[in-house]
């Protein structure tokens, strides 16, 4: 049976290190190549030795696909392509290709320059890696080679995120990456057509969560920001350059406008320019509302949000500042944090996941005395809040996507198997498909049932339709022919044509059976008796008595001869071709029962 094999790589089932190997119809594809942000050693990269123990990976993989620019999906790419070795094509969308190197370089700088790591990829490696990238458009079918093709679908989540369909012949797999089924302020919702893949691979990190309503979450956030600003405090929001920052900016801008607030909102300069630039460049990737209003007003050119200058941090009075990087591990956001931490009127709101070891992670865990460089202790008196604004699909979203794509099988990655039994049952019950949840390193085999297209010769089609009743469009029609498999093509032709093409002579098979009948009369009288008997029994068949003394039943021939040694016994020869086997056997058994004793 043809099969599709899926193996998630990398150990652990926490956030990070997305990397899935798929084997489909002889092609090997790697989906995502992420880094685990929580580890500082080899555990942060997926375990590529699964593919091969030594040497470069180019020969083992047909292509690599990256779903979006988050580091837990592309962070290990330079390591994989330059340090382990891969020269084949790497596919991603245009925004991902533009933004990936920026985040990779940013992360590299922090890891190497600040933390002093040695076994890490270099800036040149990032550049060399990106040279291998082939950018794709949404809904564009890309031929990787003669048999393998891929297509990207909109996934929401972040700018440029895509779900990918991988197709070889009639077998296909859809990989979702991270996606979101509800639109937000700056991105639309994921969408896929009824492509009916053999397998749908979906992230399921949030599958057991029922998300609070976005409105409540936003209202809470705005309330806290408002309260802090009203009492004269300062709000620091550390963000990554691209991602949720835009969402929160639009949210604050709208709120400030509505409430007519005067406190200043700042955005780190480098950030605004970059973000604006990319959102303008990839405007088709944002949601409907933004595209529509873009003509009148660029949604990312804010009235109330201004560029930040380092000096502003010392200004008295309330303000809100968006600064990078997102986990307070270095740079401007950390600087500002140090200045404002001692005042309890101030607040820091962490809008995303913080990796262990960062200041962000420490303060979220409740630490209020931090050791900074030079053994200085920083007392954190400012309020620390956390809010997850990340856009992921929950259980409801996963069900929605399955409903849209109609896969034959579903595979969930990045969830704890024990905690997913209920969701698995839910999917199996509602959609009647198999649902798999492999552990990392475990291979799941999915059997597919591909249809093989066969050309049928016109002559055969015409012949088959001539026989019998008119075809019923709803019922499948049974046809007889000969299947010729030659040079990767399949043809169905009539037997005669097949013989002709192959240069073979046709053989006819004929069976003859002898039935002994006790009858002392003359042969022609026996024949008459047999004829009358058969005519009486086989009312639906054509039974004929020919002048030469033989009987035909349809195309079966019956002749009578006298037994050579016993005049009282007659021998009936019943002869039929292979095609008439059923009727022939029936006639023979009928005659073996003997003739009725009636007068002829």
């Amino acid at each position, binding site marked *: 049976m043809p099969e599709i094999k899926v193996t998630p790589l990398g150990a652990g089932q926490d956030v990070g290190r997305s990397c899935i190997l798929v084997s489909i119809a002889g092609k090997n594809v790697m989906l995502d190549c992420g880094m685990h942000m929580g580890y500082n050693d080899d555990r942060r990269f997926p375990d590529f030795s699964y593919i091969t123990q030594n040497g470069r990976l180019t020969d083992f993989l047909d292509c690599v696909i990256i779903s979006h620019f988050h580091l837990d999906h592309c962070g290990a790419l330079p390591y994989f392509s330059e340090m382990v070795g891969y020269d084949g094509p790497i596919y991603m969308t245009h925004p991902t290709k533009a933004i990936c190197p920026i985040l990779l370089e940013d992360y590299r700088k922090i890891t190497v320059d600040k933390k002093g790591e040695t076994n890490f990829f270099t800036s040149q490696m990032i550049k060399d890696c990106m040279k291998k990238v082939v950018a794709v458009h949404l809904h564009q079918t890309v031929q990787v080679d003669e048999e393998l093709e891929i297509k990207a679908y909109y996934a929401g989540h972040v700018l440029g995120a895509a779900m990918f369909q991988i197709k070889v012949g009639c077998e296909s797999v859809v990989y979702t990456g991270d996606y979101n089924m509800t639109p937000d302020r700056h991105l639309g919702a994921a969408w896929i057509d009824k492509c009916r893949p053999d397998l749908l691979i979906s992230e399921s990190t949030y599958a*057991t*969560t029922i998300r609070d309503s976005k409105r409540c979450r936003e209202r*809470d956030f705005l309330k806290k920001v408002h309260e802090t600003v009203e009492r004269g405090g300062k709000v620091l929001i550390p963000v990554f350059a691209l991602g949720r920052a835009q969402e929160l900016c639009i949210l604050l801008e709208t709120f400030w406008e509505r409430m007519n607030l005067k406190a200043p909102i700042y955005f780190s300069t480098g950030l605004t320019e970059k973000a604006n630039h990319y959102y303008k460049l990839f405007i088709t990737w944002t949601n409907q509302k933004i595209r529509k209003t873009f003509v009148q007003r660029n949604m990312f050119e804010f009235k109330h949000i201004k560029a930040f200058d380092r000096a502003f941090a010392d200004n008295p009075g309330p303000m809100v500042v968006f600064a990078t990087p997102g986990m307070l591990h270095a740079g401007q956001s950390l600087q500002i944090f140090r200045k404002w931490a001692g005042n309890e009127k101030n607040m820091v709101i962490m809008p995303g996941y913080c990796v262990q070891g960062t200041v962000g992670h420490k303060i979220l865990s409740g630490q209020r005395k931090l050791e900074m460089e030079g053994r200085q202790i920083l007392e954190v008196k400012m309020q620390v*809040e956390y809010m*997850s604004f990340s856009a992921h699909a*929950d259980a409801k979203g996963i069900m929605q996507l399955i409903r849209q794509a109609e896969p034959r099988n579903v595979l969930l990655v990045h969830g704890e198997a024990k905690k997913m039994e*209920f969701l698995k049952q*839910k999917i199996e019950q509602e959609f009647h498909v198999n649902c798999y949840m492999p552990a990392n390193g475990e291979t799941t085999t999915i059997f597919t049932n591909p249809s093989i297209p066969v050309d049928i010769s016109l002559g055969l089609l015409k012949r088959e339709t001539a026989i019998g009743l008119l075809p019923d469009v709803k019922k499948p029609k049974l046809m007889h022919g000969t299947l010729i498999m030659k040079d990767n093509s399949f043809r169905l032709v009539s037997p005669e044509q097949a013989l002709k093409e192959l240069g073979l002579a046709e053989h006819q098979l004929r069976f003859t059976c002898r039935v002994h009948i006790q009858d002392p009369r003359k042969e022609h009288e026996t024949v008459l008796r047999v004829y009358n008997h058969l005519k009486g029994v086989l009312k639906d068949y054509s039974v004929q008595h020919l002048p030469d003394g033989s009987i035909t039943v349809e195309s079966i021939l019956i002749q009578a001869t006298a037994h050579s040694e016993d005049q009282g016994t007659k021998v009936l020869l019943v002869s039929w071709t292979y095609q008439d086997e059923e009727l022939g056997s029936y006639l023979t058994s009928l005659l073996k029962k003997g003739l009725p004793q009636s007068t002829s």
Partner: protein
Amino acid sequence: VCVAGYGPSGGNEILQLLPPPTLQAKETQGLCPERDFKVECGGFSNRPVYSLKCVPDTSLLVTSGPPDSSLQVWQVSAEDSDVIKSVSAIPTENGTGQPWARIATISARAPWVLHGSRLDNVHITEVESRKNVYVAASRSSEELSGLAFLDCNTLLLCCAKGQLCLADVRQPQSPLEAVSVPSAPCGERWCVGVGRGPQGSDSSSQPVACLSSGGHLTLTDVRKTSESLASAKCRVPSPSSGAEFLCVSWAPALEGCLAVSGFDGTVHVYDARSWDSSGREAEPVFVHKGHAFGGWDSGGGPPLVTVHTWHPQKPRTLLSAASDGSLHVWDWVQSCGKC
């Protein structure tokens, strides 16, 4: 928090949800790491679930619903799986064709479930062994709208027409003591809410509240049933939407407060300490209107609040569910009303 569906065809889910940390902590925190509910475990029920109760000190749930008055017992997951499994069914004699059973649970002497759909088929069954330990002695086939344990020996049964009956578990042979709801207008359906005092206190010292489909609220002391303690009327929309989802409950951590729902998409909170016996219209302390702004329910109408309950520790926090599938967790600020 356990929630369940009540759709007429099968495929109803029972979910055990873990509330976000904000709702678990005793003090009100600001923004918390997570605002989301986690699905701890889930199961599937062929029947619609009209009533769902946890059996205290066990990992069992009991549900009831049409088409008969039998009960279903479920095991909330073991360590290695997150599936709520059906473990047994508690049948009732002559159960088919009966309306669905009301249920109440207690684990004083053993895990017990009190159940019945009419006065003449009220039983207490041991949940694990399914053995009947008590049958109420009554020949009346009055339909029940609610039942409760006032303490480990005393039962309170409320008939749909408004009568309250008391029974003592230790005296199964003595007939039920009926206590009518004083001055109850005819033709209305009634339901009851029993207070849950602080641990160790006698629940039978708390008044019971009865709510009618016409919006009448009466407070009665079960030990002195000749007259009601107080009564009031709450504002109900007309025409009233039927009495299927009427629900009244006392706040466990806020003295004298009770909540009322089931008339429309709102939940009303009243302070009953200011009530007298006049029965006139009372002003609610707070009205939660969130469900009314939700989607549409499966019938295409505006959402109806199906049930509500109070948070056991946080004094002004309630949870309510509605016919559009929404679950709200909300509170109110005392001084300025709605926030």
